[in-house]
C-alpha cells in the first residue's frame, strides 16, 4: 500500500527526516514510536504532501504510484487520510460544513457526530477553541466522513479522557477493520494505517502488525510493535539509538 524509500525531508532550513524507509502493506497497521521532536508528525505530514515539508531525496510510493510530488488533494483522492496533531483553526467554517463537503454530501453530519458524542460541536468553527481531546474527536469525525483507505493517525489517544477513549478506540477499530476480525480477510478487505503513539494505549483497540522507532529524524529500529513498546517503556529511547549505532557498525 505505502512504500517510503530513502526519504530525506527539510522543514524551514532543518532536516527533520533523514534517509527514512518503511513499508505499510495492504490491510496492515504500522506504529511509529519516537521521542518528542524525532520527526514522527513530519513524516505523516510529508506523506500527506503539506508544502512546508520539502522532499530533498527519496520517494513515496502509494498503491504503486509515485506520489512524492503530488498535490495534497490528489493524495486525498487516492485514499490517504490524516488525523493531524495540530490542525489549524478554520474561523467561519463550521464543523457541519466541513463534514458535509468532506463526505461529498454522502454522510449526514448529525448522525456521524452522534457516534462520537460531538453533536454540539457541529455549529462550532472547526478547531476554534477546541480542547485537545475535542480536536482528536473532530479529526476522527472528519476521517470517518472522508472514508480513506490509508489512515494516518497522529497520537489519536493523546488528550482524550478515559470515557471518550473507549469511543475513539472503538471507532478507529471499526474504521480500520470495517468489522472484519479474521486476520486473513483483514489483509485483503481492511484498511491500512500508520499510527503514532507515545503510550501505546491505542494498541488495545487495533491490531498493529509492525512498529518503527524514529530518533532524531532517523529510523532507529523496527520490529514487533508490542515488543518495541515494552523495550521503550523499560529502557527508554537511548537504547534504540545505541542499538542502531551498533547495527551500523
Amino acid at each position, binding site marked *: 500500500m505505502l512504500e517510503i524509500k530513502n526519504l530525506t525531508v527539510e522543514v524551514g532550513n532543518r532536516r527533520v527526516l533523514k534517509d527514512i524507509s518503511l513499508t505499510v502493506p495492504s490491510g496492515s497497521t504500522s506504529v511509529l514510536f519516537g521521542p518528542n521532536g524525532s520527526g514522527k508528525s513530519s513524516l505523516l505530514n510529508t506523506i500527506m504532501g503539506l508544502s512546508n515539508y520539502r522532499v530533498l531525496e527519496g520517494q513515496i510510493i502509494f498503491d504503486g504510484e509515485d506520489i512524492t510530488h503530488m498535490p*495534497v*488533494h490528489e493524495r486525498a483522492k487516492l485514499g490517504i487520510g490524516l488525523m493531524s496533531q495540530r490542525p489549524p483553526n*478554520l474561523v*467561519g467554517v463550521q464543523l457541519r460544513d466541513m463534514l458535509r463537503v468532506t463526505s461529498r454530501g454522502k454522510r449526514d453530519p448529525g448522525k456521524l457526530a452522534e457516534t462520537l458524542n460531538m453533536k454540539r460541536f457541529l455549529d462550532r468553527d472547526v478547531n476554534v477553541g477546541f480542547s485537545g481531546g475535542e480536536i482528536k474527536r473532530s479529526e476522527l469525525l472528519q476521517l470517518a466522513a*472522508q472514508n480513506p483507505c490509508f489512515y494516518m493517525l497522529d497520537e489519536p489517544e493523546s488528550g482524550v479522557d478515559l470515557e471518550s477513549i473507549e469511543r475513539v478506540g472503538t471507532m478507529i477499530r471499526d474504521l480500520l477493520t470495517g468489522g472484519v476480525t479474521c486476520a486473513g480477510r483483514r489483509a485483503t478487505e481492511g484498511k491500512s494505517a500508520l499510527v503514532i503513539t507515545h503510550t501505546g494505549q491505542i494498541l488495545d483497540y487495533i491490531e498493529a502488525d509492525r512498529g518503527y522507532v524514529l530518533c532524531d529524524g532517523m529510523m532507529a529500529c523496527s520490529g514487533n510493535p508490542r515488543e518495541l513498546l515494552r523495550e521503550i517503556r523499560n529502557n527508554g529511547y537511548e537504547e534504540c539509538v545505541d542499538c542502531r549505532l551498533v547495527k551500523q557498525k
Partner: protein
Amino acid sequence: MRKRAEAALEKKAALGEDIDLSKFREGARDIPEVSSLEELPERTREAMLRASVVPSGEGREGSLVILDNSMVARSVASDAYELMDVRAAMQKHDWLKDYAWKLVQPDADKYTASTYLADAPGYFIRALPGQHVKMPIQTCLLVGSQNTAQTVHNIIIVEEGASLEVVTGCVSEGGVEEAIHMGISEFYVKKGGKLTFTMIHNWAEQIGVRPRTGVLVEDNASYINNYVILKKVRTVQTYPTAHLVGRNSVAQFNTVAVAQPGADLDLGSRAVLSGVGSRAEIISRSLTTGGRVVNRGSLVGKAADIKAHLECRGLILGDKGVNIAIPELEAHIPDVEMTHEASLGKIAKDQVEYIMSRGLTEDEAVGMIVRGFLEVGIRNIPEELKAEIDKTIAQAELAKG
C-alpha cells in the same frame, strides 16, 4: 438652503475619487408605476433578485421599488408601518421637514447637493409607536439605463418602542454599464426602538456609488447596519455615521466587502457616542481579488461609561489587490473603553492544505475559507437574511483572484 446646495454643486467630497457628474443625465422621472412588483419587466425582476429583493414579496412585510428617478412599485401589507415615496410623505406629513436634511447636509459635497436639488424620490418608512414589524420591509434602488445619474433620498423613522428590519438592494439592470448612484439616507431610531438595516449592492463594472447616511439613535434604542458588496463596481465611497445621542443607545456596523479587479471601494463606518452608557461595535471583513479597498472605522467617545470596539480584517487574494485598514479611535473624556483590532494578510496556506487533505481542490478550499471569513461579518444579522447573503457569497466568484 437651496443657495447653499447650489454653491456646493462643484464641491468635491473629502474621500474617494471625484466623479464628473456632467457625464450623466438625470434619471428618468416618469417611468409609470405598476400595481405589483411582479408586473415589473423581466429584466427589472432579474436585477432585483441579484440584490436579494424578492419580486413575489414573499417573506417581506412590504416593498418599494425605485427605478432611475421614479418610484415604480409599492406594496404595503399592514398598518403597523407607513411605506411610500418620500415626496408623497413630505406632502402627507408637514412635520417630516424636521427630519429631512437634518442628518445629512445638502452642501456636504456635490453628491448631496445634486440630490437635494433634484427633488429626489426615495423611500419613506415609518414604524408606528410600539409596533414590531415582523418580516423585513424590502426596498430596491435600481438603475435601469446607461449614463444615468440616480438620486434618491430615503428617510426611516422607527417610533418609540417599535422595531423594524429593512433590506435594501441596490442594483443595476443588465446592460447598464456606466452610471452613478447617489443615495441620501436619514434614519431615526426613537426611544427603545430598534432598526436593522441591511444593504446589498450589486452594481456593474463602470458604476460609481456615493451613499451618504446619517443615523440618530435615542435612549435605549439600537441600530444595526449590515452592508454587503461582493460584485463588480467602479467606485464606492461611503461613510455612514450613527449619532448615539441617547442613554444606553447601541449601534453595530457589519460590513462584508469584496473588491473585484477594477473596483475602488472606500468604505467606512462611524459612531459618535455622546449618550451616557452607549455602545458601538464596528466589524468589517474585506477581501480583494484585484481591486482596492479601504476600510475606515471611526469611533468617537464623548460621554461617560461608553464602550466601543472596532474590528477590521482584510484578506488579499492573488497579488494585484490593495487592502487598507484605517481604524480611528477618538476619546474626549477619560471614562471610556474603546478598542480596536485590525489585521491584513493573505489566506493561510496551512488552512488551505488542511481542507485539501480532505479531498477538496485548492480553489474549493480557498472558497470555503473566504466564505467563512466573510460570514463572520454577517453573523449578527437576522437568520432569514443570512441565508440569502450566504447564497450571494456562495455565488460570488471568490476562488482565486
